[in-house]
């Protein structure tokens, strides 16, 4: 057992969140989007760029790194930065690493951001630009197997075959999240849908329909990480980072069971770090690149038994008035796709109590999760707590 070097739990906090508008064509560079979101988050926290000594992001070669954003905002003496390669699976790892840097004293105020023109410039998968360069691509792309909706549909069917998960379960999740988005002024898709609308939406890659898939979004989102002590002196209610955990995952070519994710292995470590369990979570923002992604994570994070994610969602458990409100902002399916950071920011809003019409009354503990490790063998998650 390694010596415990750092008392991490609740040592750091998120002091502010910031957004650009979510659109389908921002008309500006990812550098511009990043700067706008960083400044918005600082403004929310009651800080200025002069207070910043760290910047962090994740990207897949499609956005502005801290080494561009820093100088663009006149920040030429950052004491810490992180340019994490990776997709949504590392989104929460970025904030976790920023919290570690702050807890260790390498920096005091780190802004974590993700800026993305995922509709107008760099679309994910093989449909908008060349297929991504990974040695595993050679075994998939020649067969026309190139894009995330295909890969997730493949795993979703494996879950359907093993556990009897149904299209109606996926559909109920999409309907529930759209209902949440209807109460979110930021959301791109706010018109309510029905299960019939879901079932009538066109096939993308069976078993996935259009309404199983997240939006492709232009936009940026940022959160300010600082010490819990400093956050208490700022003008927003601080949201403590109680736990941050990292996990492995499966490769496209090697997996023992495609119906289970790396979250199952990560979750016990995450909960132990926070000293909490799934029963303590008041609201969960769960990575929803596709409907199935939420259903499998509800199981793997321990909110229901393995294989019961579909019926759990169909029971209404994840609705705003259910026992575990999930993706209260509408998620990537209906708010917009900012690669994980907008899930963290929504969790912060819920815990501060400023989520407006979609506020979960009295929310004290939130789980926010990353892509659960299907496409890149990595995942990450945070537990946040109202101070």
């Amino acid at each position: 057992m390694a010596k415990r070097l750092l008392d991490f739990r609740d040592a750091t906090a998120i002091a502010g969140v910031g957004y650009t508008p979510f659109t389908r064509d921002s008309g500006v560079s990812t550098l511009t989007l990043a700067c706008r979101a960083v400044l918005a988050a600082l403004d929310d926290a009651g800080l200025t760029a002069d207070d910043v000594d760290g910047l962090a992001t994740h990207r897949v070669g499609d956005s502005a790194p801290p080494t561009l954003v820093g100088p663009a905002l006149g920040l030429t003496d950052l004491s810490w930065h992180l340019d994490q390669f990776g997709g949504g699976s590392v989104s929460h790892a970025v904030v976790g690493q920023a919290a570690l840097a702050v807890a260790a004293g390498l920096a005091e105020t780190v802004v974590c951001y993700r800026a993305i023109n995922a509709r107008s410039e760099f679309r994910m998968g093989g449909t908008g630009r060349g297929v991504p360069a990974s040695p595993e691509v050679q075994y998939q792309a020649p067969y026309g197997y190139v894009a995330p909706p295909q890969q997730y549909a493949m795993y979703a069917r494996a879950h359907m075959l093993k556990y009897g998960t149904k299209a109606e379960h996926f559909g109920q999740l999409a309907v529930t999240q759209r209902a949440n988005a209807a109460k979110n002024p930021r959301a791109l898709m706010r018109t309510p849908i029905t299960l019939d609308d879901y079932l009538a939406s066109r096939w993308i890659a069976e078993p996935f329909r259009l309404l199983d898939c997240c939006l492709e979004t232009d936009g940026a989102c940022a959160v300010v990480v600082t010490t819990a002590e400093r956050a208490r002196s700022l003008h927003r209610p601080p949201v403590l980072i109680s736990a941050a955990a990292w996990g492995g995952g499966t490769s496209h070519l090697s997996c023992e069971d495609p119906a289970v994710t790396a979250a199952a292995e990560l979750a016990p470590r995450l909960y132990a770090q926070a000293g909490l369990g799934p029963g303590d979570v008041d609201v969960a923002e769960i990575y929803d690149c596709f409907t199935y992604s939420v259903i499998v994570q509800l199981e793997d994070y321990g909110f229901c038994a393995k294989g019961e994610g579909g019926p759990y969602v169909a029971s209404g458990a994840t609705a705003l008035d259910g026992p575990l409100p999930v993706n209260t902002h509408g998620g990537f399916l209906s708010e917009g796709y900012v690669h994980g950071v907008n899930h963290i920011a929504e969790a912060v809003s819920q815990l501060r109590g400023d989520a407006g019409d979609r506020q979960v009354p009295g929310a004290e503990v939130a789980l926010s999760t990353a892509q659960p490790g299907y496409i890149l063998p990595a995942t990450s998650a945070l537990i946040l707590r109202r101070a």
Partner: protein
Amino acid sequence: MVVYRPEPDRDSREWWERIARHEFAVQCCDACGTTRFPARAFCPACRTEAWHWQEVDPEGRVESWIVNHQPFMPGAREPYVVVMVRLAAVPGCVVYGNWHGRRPPEPGERVRASYSRIDESLSLVNWEPVDG
């Protein structure tokens, strides 16, 4: 004609050369005998670097499949099916290919490789049912 021609790397080149001759081989660890795919330097079970190619029956079972309606592959006849096949010879390993059955795949059914010759240096590995 292939839209996305595979780009072999230094680990995988010989595997593709064998596939072009319709030989289905995987790596086998010299120390512990564990088979592995795709080609990598080290045995993930015992971390030994020494290995040899081992020809295996190109067979497996259908673990999942998708039916593609979106034009993910320009020019493909749609809808086209991609299957996920668990290789019989390499536990823990799944591979992908197009479905060459006359009917839809069935869960767990036995399948074997159906080679598609593109040109003299490239064949692709697709999958067809063992039981018609």
